């Protein structure tokens, strides 16, 4: 579904990502791990169109997407969250979910101004979808709270819900477990698996919490200093000497 070949990204003299390849199939959870500063988030930024990759190809469902502007990429069904939660803080929780669905809605100004029946119907539908996802992530009671006032774990879940209302094909999660307590991490774990099983969404995950990664990933890619180090199933990665060296340092 997602096929990344030889991706590289250069900032001035610094080669932040160099020859990274990635392959994600339908209903698959693929993790990218690596030490801090390995270039994981830069890969995400390239995939989601925030950066123009300096080299390599990215194809999504058979279509090459490198160099396409960010907002068009997310319209193809490739949506992401951020390492530091980015919500629309002074808008309410439900507004956060409504605004994310703007392209499902009738954007015709006049239809909206005079509230045509078709417009109303779509509006109702988006409200339903928002309510549904709020229930899924357990935030229904907080629907009219300002997003910025939520607890950290709730903000993380809202960010995922906000992606899901756009009905994505592929979800990219950037350190979703960062700052969560073990209990919340377990819930997140179940949520991600449910997204895959029940909603047929593929997931690309950047994460430092190894237990989460090992638990839910179908395959893992390890990057070190911008270069691919290893890839394989969790078991293979656990036994890979290069990975152990990179994480624990050489003896």
């Amino acid at each position, binding site marked *: 579904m997602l096929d990344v070949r030889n991706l590289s990204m250069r*900032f001035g003299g610094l080669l932040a990502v160099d020859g990274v390849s990635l392959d994600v199939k339908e209903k698959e959870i693929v993790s990218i791990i690596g030490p801090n500063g390995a270039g994981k*988030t830069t890969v995400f*930024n390239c995939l989601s169109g*925030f950066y123009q990759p300096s080299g390599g190809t990215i194809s999504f469902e058979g279509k090459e997407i490198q160099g396409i502007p960010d907002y068009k990429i997310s319209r193809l069904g490739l949506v992401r969250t*951020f390492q530091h939660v980015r919500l629309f803080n002074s808008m309410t929780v439900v507004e956060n979910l409504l605004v994310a669905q703007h392209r499902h809605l009738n954007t015709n100004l006049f239809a909206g101004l005079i509230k045509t029946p078709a417009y109303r119907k779509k509006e109702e539908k988006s409200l339903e979808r928002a309510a549904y996802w709020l229930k899924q992530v357990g935030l229904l009671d907080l629907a009219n709270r300002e997003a910025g006032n939520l607890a950290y774990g709730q903000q993380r879940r809202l960010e995922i819900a906000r992606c899901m209302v756009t009905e994505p094909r592929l979800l990219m999660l950037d350190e979703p477990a960062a700052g969560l307590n073990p209990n919340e991490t377990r819930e997140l774990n179940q949520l991600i698996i449910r997204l895959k099983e029940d909603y047929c969404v593929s997931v690309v995950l950047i994460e430092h919490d190894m237990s989460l990664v090992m638990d839910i990933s179908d395959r893992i890619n390890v990057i070190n200093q911008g270069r691919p180090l290893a890839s394989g199933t969790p078991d293979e990665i656990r036994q890979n000497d290069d990975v152990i060296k990179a994480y624990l340092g050489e003896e």
Partner: protein
Amino acid sequence: MHDVLYFLQQLINGLTVGSAYALIAIGYTMVYGIIGMINFAHGEIYMIGAYISLIVITGLATLGSAWLPLVLLVALICAVIVSSSMGWAVERVAYRPVRGQHRLIPLISAIGMSIFLQNYVHLAQGSRNIGFPSLIQGGITMGAEDGFQTSISYMQITIFVVTLVCMTALSMFISKSRLGRACRAVSQDLKMSNLLGIDTNRIIAATFVIGAALAAVAGLLLGMYYGSIDPLFGFIAGLKAFTAAVLGGIGSIPGAMLGGLILGVAEAMTSGYLSGEYKDVVSFGLLILILLFRPTGLLGKPEVEKI
């Protein structure tokens, strides 16, 4: 021959005004370099510098002091003192309390301050423009007696020389002095400098004071060069200087100098070959173009968007 001389004349006029723009632009560029905000009230500080110079010059003339260099020196010192104090007070009152808030908030506060200062001078000194005596007269003339002549006035030479001295002093200060080093550190990374024990509040205040002092110098020079001032005097000049700062690359001091000179020449050429009415249109047009096609300016460093 006539064409060359005419061109030369426009070039000289442009470079004169341009170097004074550069002096004002320093204030924008230094403040932007450190706290990333546009000091909208900077043009007003420059205008106040011009008013203070005129007040002092007039006062000394009434007292009967006539030795020109002394008069100018006293006017300059007074203007610098008042403008710097103004710069300090503005930072303290209008900018420090809103620092770190959403981008729009300091910007609106700065615009409010600019409107306030304009009307402060307007109410105290009246809105009419007042003649500024041209104390430095005469000049050097080239070209045929009967044909077109190119001239450099002593006033223009003074502007060049003073600007050059100020710029050199500023560069020395920034690169050599303790405070200058701290300034550079703060502009690199404000939070880190704070952690390392640099009193960032003091450094930020110092940037405002230095910028205001240079604006005061420009106020005296351009007031005398144009021959009249009014409370709106700072508004357009501030915009021009900001354009110069952006043109050269905001945050860069040599950039401000370069930007000032280019803008000055572009304006003079428009006045000389097209019409004086359109020189503002040309400089704003230049600003819009440079922001569109090279927002980092000629000497600025590109910024990578952080996510």
